[in-house]
Structure formats: structure tokens, C-alpha cells
């Protein structure tokens, strides 16, 4: 029987046969991304660790059912997101799910003063203070938007793969991605504008 490889280069037959070395390669490649995805969704290190372990345990039991049309990454993220959502519902039964998002007003051009901070020096763009602002901005983002942003922009999934991982339509992914990017951009813009004004008060 010829071996079949997933689009991210893993031997499906080895994984299905319980090959530990191949499974360890998979764990090595995706554990960091899955841990941080769960951490962003749950804001709790212990919960993130539980999700990480559960994801790979479930995966190891389900390779037989994996359809090689999708990448293993998409499939693993889908397991992780579902596990995280289940945990969120357990903690807060009334919390929102990824498929119900409140429509808000951030599709509008914000009336604040626009400053083009994109070409500030690197040491300013990546200062410790900026890092804190980046974290705070994601903490303020609704989880439904943050999950899309994380999978698409940080973990590098395509729109289609993100839609597959979250069981959303591609249109819904694009809408949420735009909202997430706009909100994060607005947060960073306010910060850079404030620090610019602090440096050279009018």
C-alpha cells in the first residue's frame, strides 16, 4: 500500500499505525501554537495545558477518521477550539460561542486623529511597553474575533482552513477577521498617538 502524506508533510499511514516517532514530530510542530491558542481563548495556564493534552489525546485516537483533504494543522486546531469552547461553556454556561457574534459599530472609520505610525523605529514598535499594549488589546477583543485572528494571522491558516477549523462560512471568517484587525489597529493607534503626544505636547 502506498503511503499518503498530509499537506503538512506527515505520513498518515504511520500516524494511523501508531508510529510514536511520527506522532512526536506532530506534537513538536504544533504544541506551541495549540497551547497559545488555548491560552488566548481561556486566559488560564492550567486550562490551556488541559486543552493541549486533550487535543493530542483525541487526535491520537482519531487518525483513522482523518480526511487527508485537509491539513493536520486545521484538524488539530478544530479539535482544540472545540475542547476550549466546551470548557468555556462549563465555566460560564451563558458565555457566547464562536458562531454568535454581536454586530458592533467598528466597521466605521473611527473619528480619532489618524497617525501613520507604521514606520516608527523598530525599538519603539517592539518595546516592552508596546508588547504590553499588544497583549492588552487582544484581551479586550471578543473571543470570537480573537480566535479567527489567531488562526489566520498568527498561525497562518488560509481563510478556507480557518473556516474549516471553526465550522464557519468563509464570509463569516472574513467579516470577523476585518473586525479583529480594525479593533487591534485602533488600539495600537491610540497608544502610539498618545506616546507621540507625550513626547511632543502641542
Amino acid at each position, binding site marked *: 500500500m502506498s503511503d499518503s502524506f498530509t499537506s503538512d508533510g506527515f505520513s498518515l499511514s504511520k500516524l494511523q499505525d501508531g508510529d*510514536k*516517532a511520527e*506522532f*512526536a514530530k506532530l*506534537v*513538536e510542530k504544533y*504544541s*506551541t501554537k495549540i*497551547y*497559545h491558542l488555548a491560552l488566548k481563548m481561556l486566559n488560564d*495556564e492550567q486550562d490551556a*495545558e488541559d486543552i*493541549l*493534552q486533550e487535543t*493530542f*489525546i483525541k487526535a*491520537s485516537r482519531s487518525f483513522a477518521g482523518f480526511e487527508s483533504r485537509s491539513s493536520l494543522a486545521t484538524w488539530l486546531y478544530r479539535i482544540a477550539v472545540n475542547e476550549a469552547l466546551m470548557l468555556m461553556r462549563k465555566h460560564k454556561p451563558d458565555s457566547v460561542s464562536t458562531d454568535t457574534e454581536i454586530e458592533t459599530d467598528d*466597521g*466605521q*472609520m473611527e473619528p480619532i486623529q*489618524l*497617525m*501613520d*505610525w*507604521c*514606520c516608527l523605529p523598530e525599538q519603539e*514598535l*517592539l518595546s516592552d511597553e*508596546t*508588547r504590553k499594549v*499588544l497583549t492588552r488589546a*487582544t484581551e479586550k477583543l471578543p473571543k470570537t474575533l480573537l480566535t479567527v*485572528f489567531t488562526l489566520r*494571522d*498568527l*498561525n497562518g491558516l488560509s*481563510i478556507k482552513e480557518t473556516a474549516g477549523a471553526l465550522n464557519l462560512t468563509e464570509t463569516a471568517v*472574513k467579516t470577523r*477577521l*476585518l473586525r479583529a*484587525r*480594525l479593533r*487591534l*489597529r485602533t488600539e*495600537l*493607534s491610540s497608544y502610539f498617538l498618545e506616546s507621540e503626544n507625550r513626547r511632543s505636547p502641542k
Partner: protein
Amino acid sequence: MNEKGHCNDMIGTLSDYIDGELSLELCQSLEDHLKDCKDCRVVVNTMKKTIELYKVESDKETIPAKVKERLYARLNLEDFKK
């Protein structure tokens, strides 16, 4: 002409534009608008930079050693831990 209204029409296309997924017609229309609209150019530039900053930070993320150790133990993969 209501220029801000025009900007609001354009803002919905910015994500697709940045990803290079905008249809040729919409792309042309947005680029024509960007030539004359500094505000929208700023939004495009800073949105690109926002994504880039997050990506740079994300690529530096690591998994705590203890978390990794417990994961490999739970999966019976201790012999393969790097």
C-alpha cells in the same frame, strides 16, 4: 461629495486587499481611492503593521518546559522529547 461615506464603503474591502484576495475591479477602485485619501492609506499601512507586530511576537512564543514535559509524559512520548 461625501468623502467619509466613501471611506466607510472602502473599509470593508481592506482586509481582502491586504491579503491580496480582492477582485480586480474592487482592487482598482480601492487603489484609485487610496491615491487621493491619506486617511485610508494610513489605515492600510497601520493595519499591515499591526498584523506584522503580532506575527513577530507570536513567532517568539514558546511552550513552558514543564508544560511540554507533562504533555510528552501524558502521551507516553518521553523518549522522543527534544
